[in-house]
């Protein structure tokens, strides 16, 4: 399923590749936000299918879909009421199948959400479980006569929840929920729950999906006297899922959403027998921090703490996503700094994070946006592009919860940004329409027509990245020059070596790189393909403009 448009070195890319997720560039979107085909104001699968050419031309190779299942939508679809169907607003199961086929035809793989930890309280399973204490599904959820069990377990949604227990007036007992109170946790101590979940996954795998992002995987199991996170029993569940997956669906991928320190996430890779991939959450805020501090220290520190993972596994890295920019995996000092620098207006803050998009956080500074994307595409891991960030979309912090970063995709300057033909009042959310980020100024159509737009730049960035497997699979070695405003590293894979040099500062910088061990190599700048002076016996002097970065392919000729 390799895209014909993808340039690759035949010697590096095998024909059948069960490690496709390591080389992927992921595009994250919610079907609701992307394109509305039936003028009801809500994006749907038919509309998304119409836009697959755009995604293919962008250069991404896989799409990660946020939840599209039937749901009361009290948590934007993460409260699932039916695991094996499609929410009516987004189309039908047939529409999904069509979308899947068209995506695959273009060489795009599809990753879907699978929320195992909890369901909506509207799910039939919960409705049955709560109907009486004797119901056969009673034990599918976690119940208690008191709210004192599992003391000290942190609350995730601190802005809205005051307890991890909620009182059920129907069955007159408490049920456990790590997230919203309308999202009761499933009880994985019950083998029937595991089997039911496996059946759900098989349903989608049989349709042809390429992988699952398992939401909130750290919280599957509870035990007294613990924080109810990352427990050995949870890993056992994952291992069994993985075993069955590899047996029946080789090549399908499991992606862990575990917002933990790298050392704790490491456990979710197991010995290559648990998750194929996991998000590197702590790296993300530190990229933002490094640019603001104009100091590479935060990035170096977190990657130094990042453990080795099995060869078949991969970190997934990102700049922004559908949630708040989480500041859980930072210190109090770092959190305060991030708030002061990126979220002075308290409306921008939610839970322990910042609910803004990339471009507004960068003050719409094209250079900084490019720098961060350059970091994303050159650091070790599979990069994820959040929909709209490729054109520099803005946000609407007044929409409540995290909806401000989930506004309609801006396709053109026509009605509703080309997202929908519905009356504007009917849109699921208003389009961004201010003078800076409004759809009249920021849209895919105008950027496609402008040779030097952000969108065109992103395409060239992805084109270069996709052409060299060193970015996706290579090692990383930091050079640590004395100028702390420059982040420089070598990426190596097979016979390929790439030098990446990033100026994190708003002012021009000079840097001397210790590359004497590469004496004789010729650095070739990878975007313009121009030759730079050969490495010699002395430190290599480079000068960089504000926020500028270089990717050099090193050739020995």
């Amino acid at each position, binding site marked *: 399923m390799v895209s014909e448009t993808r340039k690759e070195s035949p010697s590096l890319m095998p024909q059948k590749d069960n490690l496709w997720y390591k080389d992927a560039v992921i595009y994250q979107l919610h079907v609701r936000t992307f394109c509305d085909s039936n003028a009801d104001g809500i994006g749907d699968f038919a509309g998304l299918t119409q836009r697959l050419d755009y995604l293919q031309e962008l250069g991404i190779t896989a799409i990660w879909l946020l939840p599209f299942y039937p749901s009361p939508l009290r948590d934007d679809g993460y409260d699932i009421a039916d695991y094996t169907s499609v929410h009516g607003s987004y189309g039908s199961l047939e529409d999904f199948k069509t979308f899947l086929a068209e995506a695959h035809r273009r060489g795009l793989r599809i990753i879907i959400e699978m929320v195992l930890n909890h369901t909506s309280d509207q799910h039939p399973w919960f409705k049955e479980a709560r109907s009486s204490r004797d119901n056969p599904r009673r034990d599918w959820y976690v119940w208690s006569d008191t709210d004192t069990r599992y003391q000290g377990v942190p609350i995730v949604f601190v802005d809205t929840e005051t307890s991890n227990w909620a009182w059920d007036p129907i069955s007159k007992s408490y049920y456990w929920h790590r997230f919203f109170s309308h999202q009761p946790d499933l009880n994985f101590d019950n083998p029937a729950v595991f089997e039911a979940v496996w059946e759900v996954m098989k349903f989608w795998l049989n349709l042809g999906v390429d992988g699952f992002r398992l939401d909130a995987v750290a919280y599957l199991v509870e035990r007294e006297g613990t924080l109810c996170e990352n427990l050995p029993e949870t890993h056992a569940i994952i291992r069994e899922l993985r075993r069955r997956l590899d047996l029946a669906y080789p090549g399908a991928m499991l992606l862990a959403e575990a917002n933990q320190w790298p050392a704790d996430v490491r456990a979710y890779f197991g010995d290559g027998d648990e998750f194929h991939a996991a998000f590197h959450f702590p790296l993300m805020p530190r990229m933002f*921090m490094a640019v603001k*501090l104009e*100091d*590479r*220290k*935060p990035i*170096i*520190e977190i990657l*130094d703490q990042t453990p080795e993972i099995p060869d078949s596994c991969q970190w997934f890295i990102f700049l922004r996503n559908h949630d708040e920019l989480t500041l859980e995996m930072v*210190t109090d*000092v*770092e959190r305060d*700094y991030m708030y002061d620098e990126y979220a002075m207006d308290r409306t921008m803050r939610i839970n322990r994070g910042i609910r803004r998009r990339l471009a507004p956080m960068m003050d719409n500074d094209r250079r900084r946006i490019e720098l961060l994307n350059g970091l994303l595409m050159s650091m070790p891991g599979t990069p994820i592009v959040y929909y709209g960030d490729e054109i520099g979309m803005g946000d609407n912090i007044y929409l409540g919860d995290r909806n401000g970063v989930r506004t309609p995709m801006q396709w053109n300057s026509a009605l509703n940004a080309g997202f929908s033909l519905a009356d504007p009042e009917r849109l699921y959310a208003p389009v961004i329409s201010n003078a800076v980020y409004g759809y009249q100024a920021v849209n895919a159509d105008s950027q496609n027509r402008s040779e030097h737009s952000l969108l065109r730049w992103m395409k060239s960035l992805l084109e270069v990245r996709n052409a060299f497997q060193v970015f996706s699979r290579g090692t990383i070695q930091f050079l*640590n*020059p*004395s*100028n*702390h*405003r420059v982040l420089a590293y070598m990426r190596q894979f097979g016979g390929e070596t790439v030098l990446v040099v990033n100026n994190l*500062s708003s002012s021009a*910088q*000079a840097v001397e790189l210790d590359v004497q061990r590469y004496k004789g190599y010729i650095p070739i700048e990878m975007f313009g393909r121009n030759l730079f002076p050969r490495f010699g016996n002395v430190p290599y002097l480079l000068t960089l403009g504000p926020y500028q970065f270089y990717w050099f392919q090193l050739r020995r000729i």
Partner: protein
Amino acid sequence: MAEDVFLSDDLLRQLMSVGEVDLLVGMSSHNAANTVSHALDAIEESFQRNFVRQRVVIVHVGGGDKDEDGVVAKGHGNLAETGLRLPGITSLRTSHRVTANVPDPPSRGIALRTILAAADLLRARACAVVSPGVSNLTPDSIASLLRPVYREKFDFAAPLYARNKYQGLLARNLLYPMSRALFGCGIRELFSDEWGFSGRLASLCLNQDVWHEEAIQARPEAWMAVSAISSDFRCCQAFLGEKPQAAKGLGTDIVEVLRQTVGTLFWCLETQQSWWWDCGRSQPAPAFGPDHELTADPTDLDRHRIFEMFRSGVTELEPILSSILDPETHSEIKSIVSREEGKFRFKSDIWVRTLYDFAASYHHAVINRDHLVQALAPLYRGMTYSFLVEHSDSSPADMEAASELLCGEFELQKPYLMERWKAKIEVKS
């Protein structure tokens, strides 16, 4: 303006890597690896506890640690990975250490010039100079010097200490009241091993062509303070706790101490005449930190010996004193020298006139200026003896009141100094 290049290429390269900073702490040392290490840790800890978001650098001027070069060498470069790690504290930024290696023991002037150059080139907003040899150098004391400059926008922060009532007599009876009266700013510790200053004061001082002067080589901090005052920069004082005791044998040679302190003060009068000539009544220098009092711990100073040295010194230096002092002052001195020890008192007005005679004679260079300052030693001893006797039972409040009276006397007799300064005096060859 000095045109010679004194920054080494190596130092310049290090500064290039650092870039602009908010805070700079400088120090100099020679063959003092252990104390340097302690000082570096204290500075690092101060940065991490008090200035976690600021861009910081430590500038160390030193060398000669032949056996322990490792300590100096390790201090060079970025501390992102190897710096002090405090539990519960995260430093957001890379912390830099810059080392200017010099082969010979650096004079205080050379060390300060290097530090000022670094501050200027790095556009540091607030700086401090500390001494590794100061026994009570703590993270809090370093922060106390930096905060008034960085946060309150002062240009000079002199230290303020909690003293024993018998400590700092030279400052109490001469340096403080005289500088306060003439320069108009009530900085108690004009001469110290640690002080804070702004980047703009650093630039001002760096660009003055004074670096060859002996006064700068010996005690440049007073000159910095006077430069700040005379440039109408904002000055303050920062409480640092107890004044560390000097080790025995160091700083106890009163002649040498007078050469360095009074000699520098007199030199400042020479170079800043246009300021102090028209300077009005003195203003207090704001103080940061807790209120404190003198302590009344007993002293082991030998009063009798001090008195004998006073009397014998005045007698031996009679010819020299006659060329320095005004005849009326000299007559008064000869009169009190002849008194019995128990009845001897060096009254304030005579003491002040004596000092002003010395200052004026320094201005006219009636004799070699170095010898002139040294000749003050026995008279200072006389003043010290008188002070010890007069205040043996004084309370801290009484002593502060007496200090204020002495300051008033200095201000009152300023016209006398001006008159002596302008007078035509025969210079003995």
